[in-house]
């Protein structure tokens, strides 16, 4: 029993160090936890027990749910054409190129190469949003359009992760039916439920959501799929319900960030073998360039078709090249299901970290839309669709 307390103390100490470092350097705690996890994993190999695996997996599911719940459905409806095109291209181009490069250039087997494709197909709504807040771009049409496209991109990633490695047996179809029914009934049922329990101190809303996500994750896992897929979809259909209930999201986020996601990101980092990364630094570079290149080749012409100016087009392309949470979730899925080796996992996680940092730095330094230029895109979008700024 004392070993359990010791293990917990070590992990929570790492989580606390990450929070304090995050506070000091102004970088998201998720990225710091990943890096602290990498340092700890290579320095003293903290024990990854079953209960840590559970907390980490649950953390990934809740984090995915929260990401889905941040969808602005109104924006998606208004800019559906642009966001659908940019989102789908943003997913398929790097997915296909990274898969191709990993399989035929790096010699990874088919399924491992597919994991590489999925892990590098991602973008990050949260990273993009944080960058845009600094410039006020999140309030403009172009900002909202990019964020909506990022949602579509990430939806492609979770669908690929949820479907590509499943066996399509009986349990898979049961999980599909359960998820579809949940997606259909949850918005109405949840609204009524939230009114009925009315923010009771015993947190019945949070427990209700946990139960739904756990049951759907169980069915997805039983069907050979991945729990993050129903979690993201449930988040999306409940996004409008939560629009008027930000306090509930805040309470869920507090629980998740305090107890669940630290285990997820620390564990994801601790499994990275730095020796393997150093030995494969060329592979890291190739995969990084594959993702960045594919995003550019796919998204730039799409942006040009929508008459984006060169600067805004490059900014959009770079923003959509970012990725963090879904990239690590995909890589960890591959490792835990023995689809990829630890060396391949280590390479993928480092590439994912690089894609969170490098494109945003370049975008902010050289391609940030300014003044009349960023307003111009709002006018163009309005002219084309007769829509006003959202």
């Amino acid at each position, binding site marked *: 029993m004392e070993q359990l307390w010791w293990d917990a103390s070590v992990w929570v100490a790492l989580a606390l160090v990450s929070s304090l470092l995050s506070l000091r350097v102004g970088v998201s705690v998720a990225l710091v936890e990943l890096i602290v996890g990498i340092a700890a994993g290579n320095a003293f190999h903290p024990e990854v027990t079953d209960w840590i695996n559970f907390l980490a997996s649950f953390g990934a599911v809740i*984090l995915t749910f929260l990401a889905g719940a*941040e969808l602005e459905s109104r924006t998606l409806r208004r800019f559906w054409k642009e966001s659908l095109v940019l989102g789908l291209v943003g997913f398929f181009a790097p997915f296909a190129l990274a898969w191709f490069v990993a399989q035929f250039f790096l010699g990874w087997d088919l399924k491992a190469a597919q994991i590489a494709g999925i892990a590098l197909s991602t973008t990050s709504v949260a990273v993009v949003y*944080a960058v845009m*807040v*600094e410039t006020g771009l999140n309030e403009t049409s172009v900002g909202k359009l990019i964020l909506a496209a990022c949602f579509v991109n990430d939806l492609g990633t979770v669908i690929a992760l949820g479907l590509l490695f499943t066996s399509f047996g009986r349990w898979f179809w049961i999980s599909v039916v359960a998820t579809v029914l949940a997606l259909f009934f949850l918005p109405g049922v949840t609204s009524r439920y939230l009114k009925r329990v009315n923010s009771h101190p015993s947190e019945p809303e949070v427990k209700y959501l946990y139960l739904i996500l756990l049951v759907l994750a169980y069915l997805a896992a039983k069907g050979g799929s991945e729990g993050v897929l129903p979690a993201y979809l449930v988040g999306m259909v409940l996004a409008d319900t939560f629009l008027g209930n930000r306090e509930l*999201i805040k309470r869920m986020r507090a629980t998740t960030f305090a107890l669940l996601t630290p285990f997820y990101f620390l564990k994801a980092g601790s499994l990275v073998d730095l020796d393997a990364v150093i030995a494969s630094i060329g592979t890291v570079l190739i995969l990084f360039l594959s993702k960045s290149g594919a995003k550019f080749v796919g998204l730039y012409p799409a942006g040009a078709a929508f008459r984006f100016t060169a600067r805004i087009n490059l900014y959009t392309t770079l923003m959509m090249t970012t990725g963090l949470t879904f990239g690590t979730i995909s890589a960890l899925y591959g490792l835990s299901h023995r689809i990829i080796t630890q060396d391949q996992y280590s390479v993928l996680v480092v590439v994912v970290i690089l894609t969170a940092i490098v494109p*945003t730095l370049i975008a902010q330094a050289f391609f940030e839309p300014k003044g009349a230029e960023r307003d111009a895109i709002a006018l163009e979008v309005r002219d084309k669709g007769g829509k006003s700024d959202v």
Partner: protein
Amino acid sequence: MFKKILLAYDGSEGARFALEKVVALAKLADAELHLLAVGRIPEYAETVSETEEAKEQAKGYYSKIMDDAVTHLKQQGLAAKIHIEFGKPADTILRTAEALSTDLLVLGTHPHSAVRRRVLGATVDKVIDHAHCSVLVVRN
């Protein structure tokens, strides 16, 4: 003389000292005065709500500080426009100064260790290097 002055203000000792100097300067030049506080938001965030919450916290924190500064200025017979923006301090100060077309940017100083200054870079250094207008650094 300077007609539009922007003071980067965070309520610290260095910033309060700079405020006193700006009061004297603004009276002398009959200048329009702007106060700017910069709230940090986490880079590479996990969720959108993480950024939103950081914004709310920073806004709450700096609103009180700015209110106190405005009250102090009123007692000195001056008025100021308040700005609370979010992002990296140096970039945000430079961006706001440009947007307002200020002709003087005023900063207080914080005592930093040599290591921290070297590793993280100082806001003051960056603002001096890239500002479009004159910069006054007030040393305490």
